[in-house]
Every structure is written in structure tokens, then in C-alpha cells.
């Protein structure tokens, strides 16, 4: 039995050297391979439950909102055409100095991935949002029914504490409104009017952004996350905010 400390000090040789068959074998046991060491003779594993679900303790049955809005982002499909960003700006009157959603770019050297990867980001509508905790006027709050992290702009005093609390850089100060603005999953502009999708999800030509209801086992977001074929992850899990934006490839 190798000590975790020793493992941490060893060089991770990269998962691309591990056959998909073997990886799948572990996944079926509910384990995710996180590292490859010593010429492939040692593997580090973590619980698949922890990786796949933002709320590891509660696992599958506990999604506290109805509907529990969520987005699954197929990150390798993103081509940075930015139609999502344009649709969002148009729908929600976002000025060009700010964003409710944007696309990050990073270099990747993975064998199959190509040279770059585009990563769409937006408010994660966390189950344990830090932004709402630190707001002194409760201008930002988590909707008790659908879980959307909302802004009551008449209460916002522009102190920007929420920006500092947010691990996802998902808030900007709207100078015209004299208040912080952020993604609301298009609640005011679309969902509350009966639309099923956010503007960004509808505008995507590549099927990157899958929007839906995590509390419904028949929903494609639920099915996309609750499977064992592909790894699903969240950004910055160490922040502990239980985000509702999930990422996958393929």
C-alpha cells in the first residue's frame, strides 16, 4: 500500500497512457482514475460519486429545487464562435464592457484534443453560493423555488463584495443600472415567459450547452451527468459551493 504523500510527490504520467477499457472497468466500480504512476503499475483512484456530483454527500436523490436548473457543457465541442455570448448580450442587454457568459481559451497538449480548448463559463448557480452569503443588503439571493442566483437591483449598493466572493468571476458592475449584473439563466427574459432554453443554449450551433432540470431523471442534463461512460466535472470544486454547471467531453 502506497502512502498518499508518496503518490503526491511522484510524477503523474498522464491518463492518455491508460487504455479506455481499463478506465471503464474502474468506472463501472464507481471509481475514476485520476493518475498514472511508475510506468502504469500504480493508479490513483477517486470515488466516481465525488467526481460526478457536486453534492457528494447527497448523491443522486437530492436536488433541492424544482425545477433544478443546470447546464452540462460539452467543452470539446466549443468552437468559440461566440454566438452564445452575442445572443446573451442581445437578450439581456449586456454592455460590451461586461459579460454574463464568456468563452475562455487554453492550450492543451492532449493527444486527441488538438492544440486548444475553448471553455464556456457563466454563473454556476451554486447550491451554496458565496456571493449571497456576503451581500450586506441581500440584493443577491438564491431563489428558493428554482435555485437561480438572482439580483434585486434596487437593493444593490455596488459594494462589489459579491464579486470577491464569487469563485467563478461571474459578476460585473453595470454602470447604466448602477448595480451588479449576472447570469440569471435568462429567467426574466425567457424562462419566466415559458421558453425552455436560455438564449446561449438556443444560439449554440454545436450542441455545447445542454440546459435542463436536474431534478427530472428523464431530462437530458440529468442523463448526461448520471452515467458512467464519460467523466463529468465542475470548475473549482475546492471552493465547496456545489455548482450546477457541469463539464464533459464527447
Amino acid at each position, binding site marked *: 500500500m502506497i502512502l498518499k504523500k508518496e503518490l503526491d510527490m511522484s510524477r503523474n504520467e498522464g491518463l492518455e497512457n491508460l487504455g479506455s477499457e481499463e478506465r471503464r472497468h474502474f468506472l463501472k466500480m464507481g471509481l475514476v482514475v485520476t493518475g498514472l504512476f511508475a510506468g502504469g503499475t500504480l493508479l490513483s483512484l477517486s470515488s466516481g460519486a465525488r467526481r460526478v456530483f457536486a453534492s457528494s454527500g447527497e448523491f443522486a436523490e437530492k436536488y433541492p429545487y424544482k425545477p433544478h436548473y443546470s447546464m452540462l457543457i460539452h467543452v*470539446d*465541442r*466549443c*468552437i*468559440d*464562435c*461566440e*454566438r452564445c455570448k452575442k445572443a446573451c448580450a442581445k437578450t439581456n442587454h449586456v454592455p*460590451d*464592457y*461586461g*459579460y454574463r457568459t*464568456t*468563452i475562455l*481559451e487554453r492550450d492543451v497538449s492532449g493527444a*486527441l*484534443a*488538438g*492544440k*486548444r*480548448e*475553448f471553455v464556456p463559463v457563466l454563473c454556476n448557480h451554486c447550491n451554496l453560493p458565496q456571493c449571497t452569503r456576503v451581500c450586506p443588503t441581500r440584493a443577491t439571493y438564491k431563489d428558493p423555488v428554482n435555485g437561480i442566483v438572482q439580483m434585486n437591483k434596487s437593493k444593490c449598493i455596488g459594494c*462589489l463584495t459579491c*464579486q470577491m466572493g464569487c469563485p467563478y*468571476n461571474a*459578476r*460585473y*458592475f453595470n*454602470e447604466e443600472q448602477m448595480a451588479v449584473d449576472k447570469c440569471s439563466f435568462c429567467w426574466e427574459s425567457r424562462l419566466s415567459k415559458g421558453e425552455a432554453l436560455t438564449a446561449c443554449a438556443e444560439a449554440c*450551433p*454545436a450542441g455545447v450547452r445542454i440546459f435542463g432540470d436536474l431534478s427530472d431523471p428523464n431530462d437530458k442534463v440529468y442523463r448526461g451527468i448520471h452515467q458512467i461512460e464519460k467523466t463529468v466535472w465542475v470548475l473549482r470544486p475546492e471552493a465547496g459551493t456545489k455548482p450546477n454547471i457541469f463539464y464533459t467531453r464527447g
Partner: protein
Amino acid sequence: MKNVTIICLLLAGVALVAGSATAGDHGGDIHFTRPVEAVLFSHDIHVDQLGFDCDSCHDGLFEYEAGAAEQNGDFTMESLYGGGYCGACHDGETAFASDTRCATCHEGVKGYNRALGKTETAASHH
């Protein structure tokens, strides 16, 4: 006179699409901006590094004119999957398939802006 104007516009269009290409005896970098922004085709890679000759693509697949393909209504991923345009080679056998490794060819708005020498507008809260 009218014809001269049209030719000038055409030339300007070609120069614009070809961008800052350092074309030697080939077309340099071609940035396709329709139907989505943007896709980079590198003559450098395909001609100089991989050794294809002009006829490989400019014999029915693409005209000798940057931007011509984009004028066609069928310049879509669907056409590529059916073996049209880039899909003639990018079929999973000759070269990687058109429905894989998206960001290898799609440089995006960011890549295109870099090619044009534009810097991104910084978001206010940085």
C-alpha cells in the same frame, strides 16, 4: 468604370479575407468567417509541411479565390460530413474526421481577432 469598381472591391475582399498572410507560392492563411467565426486553413501546413500540390484541393473542391466557398449556401459542417470541401480528406481515413477535434481548425473569434491584430475588449471587473 463600373467594372473597374467591382474588380477593386473583389481585390479588397480577397485581401481582407486573406488577412496578413505571408503567401509565398501559395495562399497563406485563409480565415473563413462564415457561417461561423472563424476557421483557419493553413496553406503552410497543407502545402509546405504535408506536401500537397495545388490540384489536391483546387481541382473542384475550392476555387483559387479566398472567400468564394463562403458564398455558397452549402459551405456547412453537414457538407463536410458528406465529403464536400474539407470533408473530402477530413473523413477519418485520409485525415482526422470533420466531426472530431473541432478546435484544431476552429480558431474562434479569439483566434481571428488575433490574426487581425485586434486585442480583446477587457471586461470591466478585472
